[in-house]
């Protein structure tokens, strides 16, 4: 970008404002000056920006030798909701969730049958706490086992209108998702079997 005349002070103010906003760390006056067109006066532009923001919801604060935007301290109460630490769901939990979503209502025994391992109490509890699954009707079979179904919170989180909108096995395969071989544990080297796609469709309801 070439400028023959230095930009106006109003222009320079816009530049400082935008740089401070987008920067991942506080910026020094020298750093801002280096990015601005020749003939700019970053110190004066910064002073103007600071005046503009005085008393507003955000302010320009000094951090060592550098400057950054920070929200006004008296508005900290507005930020409390955002303090959420997100962690990836464990493999056991996401697999359990996926099975419930695809096969709902699903009993614990059915989940265990598909995963081939016992489902820990903690996994179900965690999914219930997230409000992604809830109890469905009891199954009318011996023992009257409880079933699990997915919730509206689940649909909302995953951007689905309906659990039936989840792609079937054939579509997963077409999208390349079935190609992702799991870690080479045990017998996992054989290709996916066509028969099984049909079985999955039977379950889908």
């Amino acid at each position, binding site marked *: 970008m070439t400028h023959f005349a230095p930009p106006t002070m109003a222009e320079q103010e816009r530049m400082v404002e935008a740089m401070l906003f987008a920067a991942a760390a506080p910026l020094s006056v020298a750093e801002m000056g280096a990015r601005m067109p020749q003939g700019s006066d970053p110190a004066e532009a910064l002073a103007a920006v600071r005046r503009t923001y005085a008393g507003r919801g955000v302010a320009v604060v000094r951090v060592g030798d550098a400057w950054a935007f920070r929200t006004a301290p008296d508005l900290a109460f507005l930020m*409390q909701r955002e*303090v959420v630490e997100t962690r990836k769901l464990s493999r056991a939990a996401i697999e359990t969730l996926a099975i419930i979503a695809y096969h709902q209502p699903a009993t614990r025994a059915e989940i265990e049958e598909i995963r081939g391992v016992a489902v820990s109490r903690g996994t179900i509890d965690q999914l219930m706490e997230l409000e992604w699954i809830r109890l469905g009707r009891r199954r009318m079979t011996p023992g009257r086992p409880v079933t699990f179904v997915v919730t509206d919170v689940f649909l909302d989180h995953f951007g689905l209108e309906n659990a039936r909108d989840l792609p079937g096995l054939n579509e997963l395969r077409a999208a390349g998702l079935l190609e992702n071989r799991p870690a080479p544990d045990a017998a996992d080297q054989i290709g996916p079997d066509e028969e099984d796609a049909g079985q999955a469709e039977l379950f889908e309801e």
Partner: protein
Amino acid sequence: MEQHTQNRLAAEALIVDVEGFEGPLDMLLSLSRTQKVDLRRISISELANQYLMFVERAAELRIELAADYLVMAAWLAYLKSRLLLPVDPEDHGPSAEDMAAHLAFQLERLQAMRDAAAQLMARDQLGRDIFARGEPEHLVANRRVTHTASLIDLMRAYARTRTRDEFRPFVMDRKNIFTMEEALERMRGMLNYFGAWTDLNEHLPEGWGLHPARRRSATAAHFAAVLEMAKRGQIELRQGETFAPIQIRKRG
């Protein structure tokens, strides 16, 4: 340079380019640009000629073309011959003009989507031209741990369990599975009752209509069975429209 060599080079240039084409439609679109007219006024016969010439040259050079290029060539050859023939008033199929117009529409639509994609990518993009807050604020107190997963994680997890499933001994209980062999055996015994058109659904075995999985399995098995019987010439099949009941009748 000799004429022969020149031709050969031109042909090879074209062939080498095939790698850069995303299928026959893309190739046709490129060829159409040589006509330098509005895509709506393009000459489909001329385009067909160019395309067929390209396929011939590929054959001369013994270059193997993907099947869809050859399918397109066959279709264009057919279209070209139809365009040259006088219209047959007895022919109720689509006219050659309609087919040509549709191809022109497809080319125009593909070009429009290309242009739209280019316009989209030329827009100011977040993280390239416009920026979000670079340092979203660290917020205080009320630390709450939540877990997250994306839809793609969920689908991958499901794919993983299903893939793994295939390597376990197959222990699924078969009480809800009706096989095609069973259905065939059953329907064969009932063959003489199919004098008039009846719905296939009415012939499902008792007790298989209520549970969804059982109903599906029985329906699928019986459907496959009647297809087999139709193939053997034992019965006839018909269906009014998509999703309408499938009807069967004994043949002869």
